[in-house]
């Protein structure tokens, strides 16, 4: 198990570094000068040149990347070109929006999808099953940003129950912040729930068709026991994979949702950083994204071992 963990951790680390290198090179490949974006359309050439030097953009790219990586190892994530503030502080503030948003949406998706998927699988062949299938099909087909706009129009513009967007900040108002996150969580979670419900149903059906379930039922075990002790436990491996994937999806999907709801989250900051060619800020954001995704898949892998002894001893 320890060798397995070490190997997984090393792969994870390499993935994160590769991701940051990829993004850095991609940004170099497209045109766009941070100094020109900061100084505006009528900037003078002398001013542009001076600012490039001040921002350290006169240093060769390879050297800049190595310096950045060295800084990260020492815990110094650099300073944002646009905001002139430490990247780590800017990102930390944004996580206060993005993490609750992603966790809330994932939680909502699980709460809806797991019971619904299992229920539909058990009621296969009845009238309920196709209803769930169609509903989840529709749910999966609706883009989250569009659902977000519909929710805004209904709950914010028509009923005026909830804010149409923005975020007051946890330190200023906890209830206000929760209210601000409610619609985004719904917009992001519902679509995810639809996808997850379909996958859960399929996983459950798969297990229910296994020989050991038939045997268990044949020897007269009550249905409850068969489902909870035999079927669900075995379906869990698939469900945890789905869960890991859905957390990743939700984290990525929050980029769009933050835009629609004007939430000051990490995704929106990353988009702004791309637009402004704010290399240090974008690099920092990508580092957080890559680490999160790699960490999630790592946790999923580890949980396989816990859930299924066959994987642990393999």
């Amino acid at each position: 198990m320890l060798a397995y963990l070490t190997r997984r951790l090393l792969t994870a680390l390499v993935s994160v570094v590769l991701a940051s290198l990829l993004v850095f090179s991609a940004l170099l490949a497209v045109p766009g000068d941070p100094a020109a974006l900061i100084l505006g359309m009528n900037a003078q050439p002398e001013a542009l040149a001076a600012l490039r030097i001040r921002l350290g953009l006169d240093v060769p790219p390879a050297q800049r990347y190595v310096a950045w990586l060295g800084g990260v190892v020492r815990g110094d994530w650099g300073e944002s070109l646009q905001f002139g503030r430490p990247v780590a502080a800017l990102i930390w503030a944004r996580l206060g929006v993005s993490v609750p948003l992603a966790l809330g949406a994932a939680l909502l998706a699980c709460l809806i999808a797991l019971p619904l998927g299992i229920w539909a699988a058990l009621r296969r062949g009845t009238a309920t099953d196709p209803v769930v299938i169609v509903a989840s099909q529709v749910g999966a087909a609706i883009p989250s940003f569009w659902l977000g706009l519909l929710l805004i129009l209904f709950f914010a513009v028509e009923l005026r129950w909830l804010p149409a967007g923005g975020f007051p900040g946890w330190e200023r108002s906890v209830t206000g912040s929760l209210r601000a996150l409610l619609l985004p969580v719904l917009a992001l979670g519902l679509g995810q729930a639809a996808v997850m419900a379909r996958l859960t149903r399929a996983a459950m059906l798969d297990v229910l068709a296994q020989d050991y379930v038939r045997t268990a039922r044949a020897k007269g075990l009550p249905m409850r026991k068969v489902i909870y002790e035999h079927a669900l436990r075995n379906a869990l491996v698939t469900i945890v994979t789905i869960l890991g994937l859905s957390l990743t999806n939700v984290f990525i999907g929050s980029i769009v949702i933050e835009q629609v709801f004007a939430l000051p989250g990490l995704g929106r900051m990353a988009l702004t950083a791309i637009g402004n060619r704010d290399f240090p800020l974008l690099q920092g954001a990508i580092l957080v994204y890559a680490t999160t995704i790699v960490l999630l898949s790592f946790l999923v892998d580890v949980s396989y071992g816990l859930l299924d002894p066959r994987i642990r001893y393999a």
Partner: protein
Amino acid sequence: MQRLIACLLALGVALGGLALAQDPPPTHGGSVTVAIVADPPGWDPSASTSQEIPRVVYHNVFEGLVRFDSAGEIVPALATDWSVSDDGLEWTFTLRSGVSFHDGSDFTVDDVIAKFERAMDPDSGHTNAAYYAAIESVESAMDGAAVVFRLSEPSRSLLYNLARPDSIIYPAGTHETQRTQPIGTGPFRFAQYVEGSEVRLERFEGYHQDGLPYLDEVVFRIISDTNARFAALQSGDIDLMAQLAPEQYVQADANPDLQASVGAATAEITVAMNNAREPFSDERVRQAITHAIDKDAIVQGAMFGLGTVIGTHMTPAEAYYVDLTDTYPYDPERARELLAEAGYPDGFTIDFELPEPYAIERRSGEVVAQYLRDVGIDVNLSVVEWGTWIERIFLGRDYDMTIIGHSEPRDINVYANPSYYYGYDNARIAELLAEAEAAGSAEEETAAFQEIARIIADDAVNVWLFSSPFLVAAQNDVHGFWTDQPTPNLNMVEVYRAP
């Protein structure tokens, strides 16, 4: 049709004036939340030429010696009055006394001198050094109660340039920190900035004009998505939103909870052509392209009729405006003839690149492309992201055709710069600009500007489609905001709330 629009606009302005006359008396206190589109690149208008900075801080936070009022007139700010010597070489500004900055320090003549010495120094990083090119020295006078600008030659644009956002004054020696912590003399002080979320301005108790501002607080909320912005206005989260899309204006106007207005602005929506590159280097081609486009139809179709067709790089909102819309009117037949004369009877292929962040430009550009195809020009349309637009098109001049709104007032001087992205090289423009600058009277100055406007229209340097209006909407209880944009500014100084 275009006259009708002008009439309607005039009527709108008149009605706006009437509504203003019926405004309830001002009350003190309260807060107003205003939507803005993006985080500006810092907050110092003399460190970046981005128009998003003065939208928030001009007059609200920072003042110069003089400033523009809502009608575009130049009025006193940190100077109470001024005079100019007979030879036009010595300008004396009497400084307002008893003014303090937001950090508590006193405003003195030293702050003025430090400011303009920086502005005149090309290595200081100050924006638009050309605005201050005529200034030879800045000196204290009358024991520091006044400041004297000595010029190398008379400058008609000096006063105008001193009213621009670039000319704001802050405490001497603080320019390093102004970008993140603005400190000025304006009626609001910069209280808090949460990147990507909002900027909060608070009433400055020590403001030099008694009774102002009316509001205790102004919050500028950053909402980049246009639908989200408008939804926030409709839901009451936002009190005021400017730069509405035309269809949003129509909706806001029909909404009983909102007031909406159409005002004058100085933005020319311009189809820019790379004059230095074939086939645009041939004047006949540029004329043909102008003839090929039905500007009226674009204003009707893309702008819901909200816009005024223009024929040169000037808007009716500017003092020296001259109507040149008839220079090369819509005439596709003539366009085809001109193309044939220029040696392109079967047309040619061009790339037409639309800037991603600007919806009105993108929309208008799509229609323009269709008109060009109608006369046989094969147009490859593409959308470019803003950073790329600035780098490759604007600074690199590597493009065929693009479209953008030039929102700065009084910016016809760019046609004198052969290295500007139009690639237009005509020495006569610089001569006329110098004439305007040295003009003995306003009439002479206007004549020189109008001559420039005529030359560039005759040369068909670009296609100037229309001037896009300032569309603003607010909750019904918000009063006193600017309904015109003589300079890009969300001016909150005289805004108040009253049912």
